[in-house]
């Protein structure tokens, strides 16, 4: 793990590359809402150049800190950057620096304390991680079952938030239907640490990473799956770096694993007569490179009329729920989500799917707020529904 001085050096070097061309402006979901140049990625980099390269510490004001934290970490700016800057990495480094300066948003400080106390992002004790299982009648979910082939890492959102419980329930139901020998970690599952990474608190993630990896290794599973795009990104991209070693088991997103089951005919999709579109979660798509498998699942369902949104795959728009934005500015997060659900409705879709519990939750709230004729579901929920119907 890099020291704060090394991070600052890296920020300085990166900021020098930016040519301020502004390609990042029109794709940035935050700039598109706020509208002032100060919220555009190029301006944030220009300020970073002042602070870190030209050592003008006075530029690191409260407004500067606020703008840096008004970001979904969607990575679309990196995708379009004319100078090829890895902007997402830069935003994370800048947040590490904010935290070191004591300029972190108070809600993020509170969240870090919460995770330290309960090992999850909710206020519930971690022993309640499997409350969602209570509503399952026909599926028995076994905890830390020895000899399992697959471990299912549920993620905090669909463990603790009732509106997202359908995702975890659908995933275990699908695994059960395909006779997969799987297990869950129960209260031994701790937050993956993604919200902490996103708030510049990588130090605290080390303990979580060590714990989670140790518990999964102890199960001896070949494969770890998760339905959460951010957990997936953290397990595949962050843990190996943080721990400095290979994990020793395969990590797949639930959509990848289920697509494999369908390909090998271990699982057959059912029928749904609906027009469906798909929202690429930033952490699964742009930031992890997985675009096809969720679409494969949707197209495996008979009757589904699959339509794409104009902004998709590498150029998909963010749902507004990433990067802890809702903790910093809930209205801003919701405004971004509203744009996305409107884009979905414009395709003629009646169901908007995604493959991320955070995206689904954020988009559901936006669709309800706008009273749109749009149901928002996780791909796995729709797949399970196709079998139930």
């Amino acid at each position: 793990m890099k020291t704060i001085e090394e991070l600052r050096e890296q920020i300085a070097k990166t900021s020098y590359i930016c040519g301020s061309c502004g390609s990042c402006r029109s794709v940035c979901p935050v700039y598109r809402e706020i509208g002032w140049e100060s919220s555009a990625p190029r301006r944030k980099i220009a300020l970073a150049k002042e602070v870190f390269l030209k050592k003008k510490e006075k530029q690191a004001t409260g407004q500067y800190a606020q703008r840096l934290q008004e970001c979904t970490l969607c990575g679309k700016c990196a995708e379009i950057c004319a100078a090829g800057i890895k902007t997402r990495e830069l935003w994370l480094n800048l947040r590490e620096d904010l935290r070191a300066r004591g300029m972190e948003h108070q809600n993020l400080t509170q969240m870090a304390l919460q995770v330290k106390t309960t090992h999850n992002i909710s206020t519930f004790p971690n022993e309640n991680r499997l409350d969602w299982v209570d509503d399952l009648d026909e599926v028995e979910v076994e905890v830390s079952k020895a000899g399992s082939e697959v471990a299912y890492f549920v993620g905090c959102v669909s463990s603790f938030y009732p509106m997202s419980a359908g995702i975890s329930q659908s995933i275990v139901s699908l695994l059960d239907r395909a006779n997969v020998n799987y297990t869950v970690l129960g209260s031994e599952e701790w937050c993956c640490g993604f919200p902490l990474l996103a708030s510049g608190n990588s130090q605290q993630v080390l303990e979580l990473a060590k714990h989670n990896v140790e518990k999964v290794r102890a199960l001896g599973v070949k494969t770890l799956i998760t339905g959460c795009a951010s957990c997936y990104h953290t397990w595949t991209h962050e843990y190996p770096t943080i721990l400095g070693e290979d994990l020793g088991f395969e990590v797949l997103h639930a959509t990848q694993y289920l697509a494999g089951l369908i390909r090998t005919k271990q699982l057959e999709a059912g029928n749904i007569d609906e027009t469906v579109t798909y929202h690429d979660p930033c952490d699964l798509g742009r930031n992890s490179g997985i675009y096809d498998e969720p679409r494969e699942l949707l197209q495996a369902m008979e009757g589904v009329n699959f339509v794409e949104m104009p902004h998709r795959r590498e150029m998909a728009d963010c749902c507004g729920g990433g990067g802890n934005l809702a903790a910093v500015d809930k209205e801003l997060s919701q405004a971004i989500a509203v744009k996305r659900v409107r884009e979905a409705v414009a395709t003629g879709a009646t169901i908007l799917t995604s493959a991320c519990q955070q995206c689904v939750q954020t988009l559901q709230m936006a669709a309800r707020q706008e009273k749109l004729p749009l149901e928002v579901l996780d791909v796995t929920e729709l797949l399970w529904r196709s079998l139930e119907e």
Partner: protein
Amino acid sequence: MEQALREICGSRVTTDPFELAPYAKDVAYVPAILVHLLTNPLPKAVVQPISAEEISSLIKWAKQGKIPVTVRGGGSTAYFNCIPMKSGLVIDTNRLQGFSEIELDQGNQKKMVWVKAGMTWKDLDDGLRQQGCAVCSSPSSAPSATIGGWVSMGGLGIGSVPYGSVHDQIMAIRGVTATGEIVELSRPDKSPARNQGSEQSDLQFNDLMGTEGTRGIITEIKLLVRDVPEKEEHLLAIFNNATDTGVMMSWLGGEHFMSLYNVHFSSPEFMMSLQKAGYAHEIPPGKYSLEIDLEGKRDEVDQAVAHIRKQVKVLGGTLLPDGVGAEEWADRFKSLRLEQTLPSLLAAEMTLPVRNFAAFYERLSKLGQKTNTLCVTYAHLVSPDMALVMVLYPSDELNLIRYIVDLSFTSNLYKLGHRLGGKPYVIGFWNTPYLGKIYDKGERERRRQRKQAADPYAMLNPGKGYNPPNIILNSYVFGFAMIMIGLFRPMVLKILKGGKGQ
């Protein structure tokens, strides 16, 4: 002031210094000492209107208080084109978004749309492509440049070979005059005008083409669009020297292929800089590369490809495998990746007769060697006989003295270009000393008269495009200063050991 502006634009007004600061900058870094010596760039307020009516009210309000007004689109130019010289009010057009349904002109069977000034060219093109159409041409900064911005500049870029300047693709324009009148101006040589000129301020259609927001404010344009082409081919040819490359560029321009859409030159130094940053490894080092983009009907593209293949061979060049050109095309908006190797670049951009391109490049190489300056060049063919050339060279904005002496080299580049028929591409503020190189005396006078007629109180974007606004920018004074500073440059570079920028 804020209260009055809020009555017009609601919450879309700011006077907060934190918010205002970025509106005093564009893409170029200029040392604060120079900026503040010559200008007062920090606006007093920035507003984001959403309609022509709001802009009209803003102009009327500004006129009453004699407050200068500067319009800003993407802020993606480098010559202070959209930066206030005398503080005042900045009108940020980025909230003027959207385009109309595609119209088909029954007379000439051409398709067109009304598009608002604040959209970026990429957003417009993406939106049109969902409906089977595309923009005819776009700036090489299409992801950031706005509709109004590019129309206010030179309007040359990708696709200019077949379609000309964007100015040639505009059928009508809506805008606001310096008196606050809302007007719709039709192209004088096309359909009958609804309003050939503004009644109060005598604003005419051409007053809004390439005049950098100095005569009126563009709010919407009626733009010709094209059908998405049947076929695209992107070839990448490499040559051993500038002469053969220049001959190939001239040949491409002269053959008048129906499907020739774009030709992009990259110098060996440009490619080397990209390769150092981990890109463009398919291109052999030391070669001069031409990306040749063809778009159109299938048979036209195929025929052109066959001819081009032969000509490349005749000139001793090589076509790289399929896919390399397509990759270059996909990365056409990412030329700034070379800043990973060469941050803090200075530049000169000019139009140049393509017949002189090879001579320019050879003289540039000699100048670079003589002055120990790494010159990195790329260019677009923008008409059958004209190229838009960008020459970049490294400096170091962290070293004030080095940066200031390096600025003098831009003057050398323009001089070199001028000898071969080249002209600075846009004026803005920093290129006002070169006005005499861009326009002859008669044209300069005609431009001044139009400015006077359209904006008698010199309220719109003052200090740009007509006369050098400051004695220091007078062409003789500036020229002499550049020569003197240039004399110190070799010594400074030697002391700093920064001859090649890094």
